[in-house]
């Protein structure tokens, strides 16, 4: 049999190598790095993601009424590198499998992942504090006897005070700061 007939038969058996996309859904590998998604219930507002982002795609800004902060990822400058996911200490930010990025110019500035993360209020003095998720608090205080559930509701100042009181380091001689 001539060689080209063999090749022809083989190719006929193999079927087309062209993907059915765009007429059918395309295959996306499970670890594909698509659009960035952020979980506002986990973010602690540390800003590490903003610091490591090579595209400068992440912006964190305090809201006008100072009750929380806006968290924005602009997908039109994101390089989908995954650095933010790698460095986020609480795994609040991750990359989805969504790669459907093509859009009209009129939508250019709407390609954002936008969240508002409200501050919590210190249960002792009422000051604004950034959230500390219970899981992270449990990790931080795993070696101490402190109850993480109460400590995460205090601002850093009140936390200090509480610790000082607990450790019995407040001497009678020095004027002990009173809790407001």
């Amino acid at each position, binding site marked *: 049999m001539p060689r080209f007939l063999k090749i022809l038969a083989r190719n006929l058996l193999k079927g*087309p*190598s*062209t*993907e059915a*996309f*765009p007429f059918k859904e*395309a295959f996306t590998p499970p670890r*594909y790095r698509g659009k960035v998604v952020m979980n506002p219930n986990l973010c602690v507002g540390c800003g590490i993601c903003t610091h490591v982002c*090579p*595209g*400068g795609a992440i912006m964190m800004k305090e809201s006008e009424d100072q009750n929380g902060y806006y968290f924005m990822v*602009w*997908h*039109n*400058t*994101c*390089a*989908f*590198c995954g650095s933010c996911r790698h460095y986020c200490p609480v795994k609040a930010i991750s990359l989805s499998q969504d*790669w*459907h*990025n*093509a*859009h*009209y*110019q009129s939508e*250019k500035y709407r*390609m954002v992942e936008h969240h508002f993360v409200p501050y919590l209020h210190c249960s002792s003095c009422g000051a604004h504090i950034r959230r500390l998720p219970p899981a992270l608090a449990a990790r931080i205080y795993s070696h101490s006897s402190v109850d993480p559930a109460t400590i995460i509701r205090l601002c850093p100042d009140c936390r200090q005070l509480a610790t000082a009181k607990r450790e019995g380091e407040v001497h009678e001689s020095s004027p002990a700061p009173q809790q407001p």
Partner: protein
Amino acid sequence: MGFLSKIAVRSPWLYRINAGSCNGCDVELATTAFIPRFDVERLGCKYCGSPRHADIVFITGPLTLRVKDQALRVWNEIPEPKITIAVGVCPVSGGVFRGGHSIEGPVDRYIPVDINVPGCPPRPQAIMEGVILARELWLRRLEKLEAGGGERRAALS
């Protein structure tokens, strides 16, 4: 002529301008067009070698100072109605090069961009989605031109 152009499925020709790209996006563009796995020719599209034959133009790269004049000159050679697709985050916003001393972009400071396909680089399927959007837009513009009568067509040709 009118009847023929109605029944004929229009096939836009593609052209590619590299405005200082790192070549990542250009490789993806080549992949989209030239390997059978993605095969953009199924959509009736075909790469052409001359800007004067093109209907849809891809721009990659952040428009560096060095290449700006040449890129704009080539873009101006493309006849109207043309559709401009910015491929990659570089032309759309400057991407990782934004703020560099030799970056003149984003491209839409100089060129009216129609479609953006962000990604660094975007995967071939995303580029194909951009081509589909561009083709629809192009057909709409052609229809509008035809409805507008010979006067505008003469002005544009």
